[in-house]
């Protein structure tokens, strides 16, 4: 049911099926979906596969107890920030201190007052929403709304790892506005900002859904092109370059803005290369494009076949 998909998921980890049933019945009118797990081991698998918005965690369970589950959740960057409410029959302060020190957000003793448990769950879900909002904000560039430099660094390393692991094509384009300083100096910073915003828009429009467009810094943008070899990437870059050249600027219709683009890409048989080395190569091509008169695309094809062809 699509409506269910939008609701946040709360995962109950408790070794007692009678507790599962009780909370399922008592929380069924709440604005979340309650999933259940009978053991710590099973729960960790579920949490990593699909992180819930909040976890209700029993302490006393055979084999892996609640403290061990808590430690494992806080050790994993994927699950580290999920709010955790400990639900325990023990109300000694020693257990509470341990739970909070291990990273629990809240501690409720069983048998618990249901109105209170519901309120605590709502508070935990609020915290989860705020943390997600914060994480999203931290990855967005304020001026252009594109992914920022930090997000680029993260996504680019991920994509290069995938390239090495799955042998799928990958390309990286670095796009830089030509003579941007002149625009800023001649027409003022608001005009410069407008150029950056409009460039960001065109880059987004011309890219495909899977491409990741980032503001790398200043007037420089990066486009990660998954599943795209250097030939295809060059076509896309040329299209972007042409589209940007066509823009008529309301603040300075007399002067067009052009971009230079440096590209490095490889098909499935690319070399073992670090994300940094790959980025350097794209950047070097950008420098070459600037040096050869700007408003152009320079590409390196790192595929082994192409290198052999060149060597032969």
């Amino acid at each position, binding site marked *: 049911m699509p409506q269910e998909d939008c609701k946040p998921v709360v995962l109950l980890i408790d070794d007692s099926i*009678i507790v599962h049933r009780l909370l399922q*019945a*008592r929380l069924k009118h709440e604005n979340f979906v309650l999933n259940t797990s009978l053991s710590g081991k099973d729960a960790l698998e579920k949490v990593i596969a699909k992180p819930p918005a909040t976890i209700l965690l029993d302490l006393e369970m055979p084999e892996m107890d609640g403290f061990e589950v808590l430690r494992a959740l806080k050790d994993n960057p994927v699950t580290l920030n999920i709010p955790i409410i400990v639900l325990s*029959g023990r109300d000694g302060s020693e257990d509470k201190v341990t739970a909070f020190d291990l990273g629990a957000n809240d501690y409720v003793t069983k048998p618990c007052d249901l109105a209170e448990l519901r309120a605590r769950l709502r508070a935990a879900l609020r915290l989860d929403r705020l943390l997600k909002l914060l994480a999203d904000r931290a990855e967005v560039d304020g001026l252009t709304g594109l992914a920022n430099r930090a997000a680029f660094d993260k996504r680019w390393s991920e994509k290069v790892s995938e390239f090495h692991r799955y042998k799928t094509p990958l390309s990286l384009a670095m796009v830089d506005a030509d003579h941007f300083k002149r625009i800023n100096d001649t027409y003022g910073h608001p005009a410069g900002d407008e150029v950056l915003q409009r460039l960001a828009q065109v880059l987004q429009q011309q890219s495909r859904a899977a491409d990741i467009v980032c503001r790398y810094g200043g007037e420089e943008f990066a486009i990660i092109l998954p599943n795209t070899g250097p030939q295809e990437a060059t076509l896309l870059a040329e299209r972007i370059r042409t589209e940007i050249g066509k823009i008529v600027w309301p603040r300075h219709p007399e002067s067009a803005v052009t971009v230079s683009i440096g590209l490095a890409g490889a098909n499935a048989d690319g070399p073992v290369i670090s994300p940094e080395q790959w980025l350097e190569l794209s950047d070097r091509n950008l420098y070459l494009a600037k040096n050869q008169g700007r408003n152009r695309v320079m590409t390196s094809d790192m595929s082994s076949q192409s290198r052999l062809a060149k060597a032969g």
Partner: protein
Amino acid sequence: MPSDPNNTAGQPNIRSEFASDPDMQEIIGLFVQEMPERIAQLQSSWTSGEFDAVKRLAHQLKGAGGGYGFPTLGQAAGKLESSVNTLVNNSHGTELNGIKAQLDALVELCNRVAA
């Protein structure tokens, strides 16, 4: 409502405080239906000296008793849990007969629960 056949002591059935709550009727039914099995587990674990299992069952009943509308059951289970805890942690000088009486008291209550 016919009396529970396990209820040999002739004591009246204990009805759940939430018996008329539509959200609860189904799960109270299951709770009561599964009770004979739970009692058997409790007794056989005790007889075979598996005190950890007794403790776990008592712990679950303590946590759930009140929630299912049987607070006296939850309290009896809580007493048993804490006594077995003492027994497990320090078996010297713990009065086994006293704990057995608590277990019997819990079983007696368990036998009387009704949906």
